[in-house]
């Protein structure tokens, strides 16, 4: 073996190296064979047992060629491989052992032949996976039901299925010194801003990690403001959404073994959009969008506001309502703030338990927790019925936010607002809102202000996009958003026709 790890002409040297490197790797099959009529030409096939089945191997063109080689004389085999090896569609020639091992570990079979200073990669379907499944995290009533799976190649194929254009580029990169996880970067060549592409490539080169198990790790490693609870990448499990976002000039990062693609850059507004916003009529899409914005506000401040109004600013409420609140609280031993904190934490527990419970038990857990425990707590005078209503509204609002990663910071910050509202009343809420807006105003995702399209001196540039809290009729949305390259802003134009 040379210093550069080249594949040797001598099969013995190659086999020894492979066996040494694969020592105690019971899942890796090293299958030596003697080819040719006289069984004189030695070859070795190396593959991962589960990733490459024997049947599959025999079904490939090279598999059939190997079968053919059993009938050939020893002198004919080497020239035959040299002449035909590269011409076969599912075969790639590899010249170093590192390349060969990387290909084998990616789930392919590698074929070494005595006297041939290279190896042939025989493509395989790779590791077992769940295949294309439904996008559980981003359910829609209208639109494709397909969701990303665990295999990066299948995922990019699902996007390619929707964008059949060679301008859709797919760049591959291996991340993780030990995991060698394949990552793909998808973008439409003439729509993406080159500086954006350069920036993400630079960021991907700024770290070295042993392994990546999900796109979430990549997200945290490449985001600008690491301390912010707000996601600076948007995740999606939907290939149709990903394809549409690529047409807006955004970049999609897919990571092997992760069904969540990362879209960048992203803004506050992007998280409150769903794929259906594009498919439905503008009136309904706008209404739903406003509902989601209201849900964000309610998730964040509703509980705190309740405390502020009932503990500090009772003059706001009509007397009858105030009296019924007071009546409902009779016999409850805890202060309102503690009541709310107990119920909010109980809801988080139910939610967490529901997620971790297998299958249908999760739903049951929600009903048991929400109805039975809630009712029992009220009957036992642990909390007042109003608190249950307040927590239920907050919980419903948090579930209305379409993106789980985006909903999480609001659920977390809600506790801060409860404390502020409970100790300083509405002034505390104002302080919290000030701090939040100040933080969001300073946040950017790959240079794009997080509060776009509500802010930014570049708002003029995204005028034709007509996106905001309301969605314009589709014919008015003729421009791509701020992410796309300036020269390719127009995305919809009318054609003259009969």
């Amino acid at each position: 073996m040379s210093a550069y790890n080249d594949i040797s002409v001598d099969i013995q040297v190659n086999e020894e190296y492979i066996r040494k490197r694969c020592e105690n790797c019971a899942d890796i099959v090293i299958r030596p064979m003697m080819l040719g009529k006289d069984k004189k030409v030695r070859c070795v096939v190396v593959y991962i047992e589960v990733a490459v089945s024997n049947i599959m191997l025999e079904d490939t063109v090279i598999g059939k060629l190997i079968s053919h080689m059993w009938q050939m004389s020893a002198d004919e085999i080497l020239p035959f491989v040299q002449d035909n090896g590269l011409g076969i569609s599912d075969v790639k020639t590899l010249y170093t052992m590192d390349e060969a091992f990387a290909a084998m570990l990616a789930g392919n079979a590698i074929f070494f032949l005595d006297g041939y200073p290279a190896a042939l990669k025989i493509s395989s379907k790779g590791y077992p996976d769940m295949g294309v499944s439904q996008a559980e995290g981003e359910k829609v009533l209208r639109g494709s039901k397909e969701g990303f799976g665990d295999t990066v190649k299948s995922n990019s194929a699902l996007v390619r299925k929707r964008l059949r254009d060679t301008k859709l580029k797919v760049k591959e990169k291996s991340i993780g010194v030990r995991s060698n996880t394949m990552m793909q970067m998808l973008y439409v060549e003439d729509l993406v801003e080159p500086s954006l592409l350069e920036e993400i490539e630079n960021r991907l080169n700024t770290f070295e990690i042993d392994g990546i198990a999900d796109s979430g790790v990549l997200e945290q490693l490449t985001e600008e403001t690491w301390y912010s609870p707000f996601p600076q990448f948007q995740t999606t499990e939907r290939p149709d959404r990903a394809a549409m976002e690529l047409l807006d000039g955004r970049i999609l990062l897919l990571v092997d073994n992760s069904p969540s693609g990362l879209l960048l850059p992203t803004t506050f507004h992007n998280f409150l959009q769903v794929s259906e916003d594009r498919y439905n009529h503008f009136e309904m899409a706008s209404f739903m969008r406003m509902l989601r914005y209201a849900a964000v506000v309610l998730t964040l401040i509703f509980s705190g506001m309740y405390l502020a109004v009932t503990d500090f600013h009772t003059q706001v409420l009509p007397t009858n309502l105030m009296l019924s609140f007071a009546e409902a609280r009779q016999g409850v031993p805890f202060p309102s703030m503690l009541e709310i904190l107990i119920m909010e934490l109980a809801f988080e527990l139910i939610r967490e338990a529901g997620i971790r419970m297998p299958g249908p038990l999760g739903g049951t857990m929600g009903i048991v927790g929400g109805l039975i425990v809630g009712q029992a707590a009220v009957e036992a005078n642990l909390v007042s019925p109003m608190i249950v209503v307040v927590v239920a509204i907050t919980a419903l609002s948090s579930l209305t936010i379409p993106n789980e990663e985006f909903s999480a910071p609001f659920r977390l910050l809600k506790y801060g607002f409860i404390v502020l509202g409970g100790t300083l009343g509405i002034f505390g809420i104002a302080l919290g809102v000030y701090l939040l807006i100040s933080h969001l105003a300073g946040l950017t995702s790959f240079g794009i202000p997080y509060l776009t399209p509500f802010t930014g001196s570049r708002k003029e540039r995204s005028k034709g996009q007509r996106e905001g809290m309301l969605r314009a009729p589709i014919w008015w949305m003729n421009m791509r958003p701020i992410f796309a390259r300036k020269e390719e802003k127009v995305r919809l134009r009318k054609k003259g026709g009969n």
Partner: protein
Amino acid sequence: MHINNNTISHRQLFRQVIVSFLGIFLLQIPGWESLVGRVGVLCVFIGGFFLFFYIIYLIRLSNLFTNMEKNFGKIISRMIILLYLSYLVVTGIFLLLTMHAVVSRFLVKNAAGWIIMGLAIVICCQGSKKGLEARGRMAEVIYPVITGAVVIMFVLAVFQVHPDYLEQSASITVENLGWGSYGIFCAFAPMVLLPFTLSRVEKSASTKGTIMGAAGLLAAFLILAFIVLQGTYGIQGLLYKQFPVIDLMKGVGLPGNFLQRVDVFWIIFILFSVLFALGSIFFYQNELLSSVHWEKYRILAVCLMYAGAVICKQMSISPSYYGWLLKWVYVPLFLLVTLAIGIIKRRRIRE
């Protein structure tokens, strides 16, 4: 990056000016003795007239403020910066005292001053180092909410106006008009800080219209407040109110009367604007300190402001002293300094 985040747009500048001034103006100016009803309206016009020329003058000087040490030498530039810094500290104390007065009277009864003011400082300090563009974005987002709320509240308050109160007139004397107009001019004193940041506004040479527009809109809000307040309380009634604009909302209800009182919400919108103004004070403090490489004194300046506010609170010093300081100390000094800078600029052009 394909996006330039180093400058702000005229729109952001406009909104920053409005959001910074609106809350404190509505809280403080309509209570001034010489600024009542029609006299107040006249004073806004006269004060605005002089302000117009002064702003043009300031914009013309703005290039000299970008690199002060180079333009005026180390000692003079530091003296000028010290003057501006002391003004910022005094303004910060005034804002903190006003905020505490409103909070403890209308929102959290008898709230401890050191806690309210301390929290306001901590919250407003956060993000003040993120640059002008972050403040621009913040102003852009909150501007429609704050101005919208103020407009709605004025519209609702119009129903309380008694037409006969509007016919009353305070005695219009030259002295009244003079002091009132000078008071309005002094209220816009924070405009002297604009030259420090104008270089970071897109097409900074043409910001005149934007700043004038913002000052005009603020003047319009003030005029509206003077008219509505006089119509609601009459001239005599106004003289005994510390925060007449807040009192104005006490009797206002929302259509449908589903809430008993809404003044709390209005107070909060106005206080939000005051918080933004306080954030602007910290922002300009950072800018001034870094212009003479005194970044390490940032905490000291903040502590000074906090200590000043707490001491003033303990000694029951009224925020109205701020008006006296502006009229007799800071505004004359600023006029002198800017005049001197103008003379230096003229000499340089001649040379």
